[in-house]
């Protein structure tokens, strides 16, 4: 890897990481010796490795996904982990399976990459992407809600929760029980209690 390191990498690296990582007293210019680089690497291994600014995410079932940092920080949870310096080699996400993580990454990528230049067209494009994105089976949808919640991605959470809310809005409890196969586990006394508790909403 050191063989491939050239002045371009070093210049870009020092410019972009200047505020965060202390740079060696030597100014960034052509002609770092190999020993200097090796010395640097041993102190800041991650900074050189992540000079192309990607983050590695690891799902609960052990799969790794390399994503651009800009995409990864759509998740506030991941963003805080990076800021707190926990993003050394890879970020483990024990609460998210690879299947769901890949979908989440797809969502974040699309939302980061959509250009703001042509506002109207981009907006329409994003809307139809979102609409198709949630056309999944119920179980995946709920997994996405849990993942969006854990990873703290507000736009994804809004999208998925609104989708489920729209599915149950306007239906009576009996209809919902039938459609979603939900068991009524109330005792008659409990049911009466709930009715009384919530009567204020229907007076």
């Amino acid at each position, binding site marked *: 890897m050191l063989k491939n390191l050239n002045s371009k990498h070093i210049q870009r690296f020092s410019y972009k990481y200047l505020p965060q990582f202390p740079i060696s007293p030597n100014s960034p210019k052509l002609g770092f010796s190999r020993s200097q680089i090796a010395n640097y690497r041993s102190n800041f291994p991650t900074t050189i490795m992540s000079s192309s600014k990607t983050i590695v995410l690891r799902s*609960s079932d052990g799969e790794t996904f390399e994503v651009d940092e800009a995409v990864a920080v759509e998740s*506030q949870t991941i963003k805080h982990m990076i800021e707190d310096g926990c993003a050394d080699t890879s970020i483990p996400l*024990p*609460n*998210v*399976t690879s*299947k*769901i993580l890949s979908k989440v990454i797809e969502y974040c990528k699309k939302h980061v990459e959509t250009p703001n230049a042509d506002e109207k067209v981009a907006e329409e494009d994003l809307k139809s992407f979102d609409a198709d994105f949630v056309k999944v089976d*119920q*179980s995946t949808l*709920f*997994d996405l*809600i*849990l*993942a*969006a*919640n*854990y990873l*703290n*991605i*507000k736009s994804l*959470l*809004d999208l998925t*929760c*609104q989708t*489920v*809310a729209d599915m*149950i*809005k*306007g239906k*009576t*409890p009996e209809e*919902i*029980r039938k459609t*979603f*196969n*939900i*068991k*009524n*586990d*109330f005792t008659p006394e*409990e*049911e009466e209690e*709930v*009715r009384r*508790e*919530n009567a*204020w*909403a*229907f007076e």
Partner: protein
Amino acid sequence: MGANSSLLSPDSSDGSTHPSKLTLGEIPESCVALVLSYLDPPEICKLARLNRAFRAASSADFIWDDKLPLNYQHLVDDYLITNPRKLGKYEIYSRLTRPVRFDDGNKEFWLDKRTGGVCMSISCKALNITGIDDRRYWNFIQTNESRFHTIAYLQQIWWFEVEGDVGFKFPSGTYSVLFKLRLGRFTKRSNRRVSNYEGVHGWDIKPVQFQLSTTDGQQVVSKCYLENKGVWEYHHVGDFVVDDSFVPTKVKFSLTQIDCTHTKGGLSVDSVVICPTSLVKDFKALL
């Protein structure tokens, strides 16, 4: 919202570790609560009847915290007589949707169930009515038609002036002031309610003037002819905007017809309503 709810219950992480076939009935409570927060209060309460998990989820604090007005704590402290036990957000919301009386019981406010907007009704007894003490001009009539069970009925007068004011910490937004009026009255003849338009006169000669002003300089003046005998109507005076939820807004409103060349009478005055502008049509629909 996301950061708060992931701390809600330890089982929020369980759903994803098993590659489970989750259905609506099996998702953890915190997840249900998240979904419920995207619905309005009557829907949430309806869904509380689904099963135990939904019932528990529907009373999650963060849902109702979002639906309560910004200054709800001030409203609770100033106007609700609560026991020392601290009320949960759900309880506060449900309590505030029931009218809360203040100012000697002549004014009341409540939260609109669906939107959480603050609405207020000011009884005619809280208004300054010129000549109210003279039974030749004005009478108070007990009736169930009014929230306060009293309306003021004008027999006849030259100088017609009804005005009032209220100081209240309205949550920020745009509000409308409405006068609830009716030309004519009902009398009981052998146990039946009969409409009585005999006394109605003078309203077609000159228009009445509605006025509204706030201490921060907003002002609205409008004129209209009162028509339509026999039905209660909400007359829209105007709108005012509240910027700061934590500072009391003082609103003054009045209804006058002081052209003394003619008398007018036969008018029933019920109350003045202040509500969010978006709810005006809901009020009118209730008449």
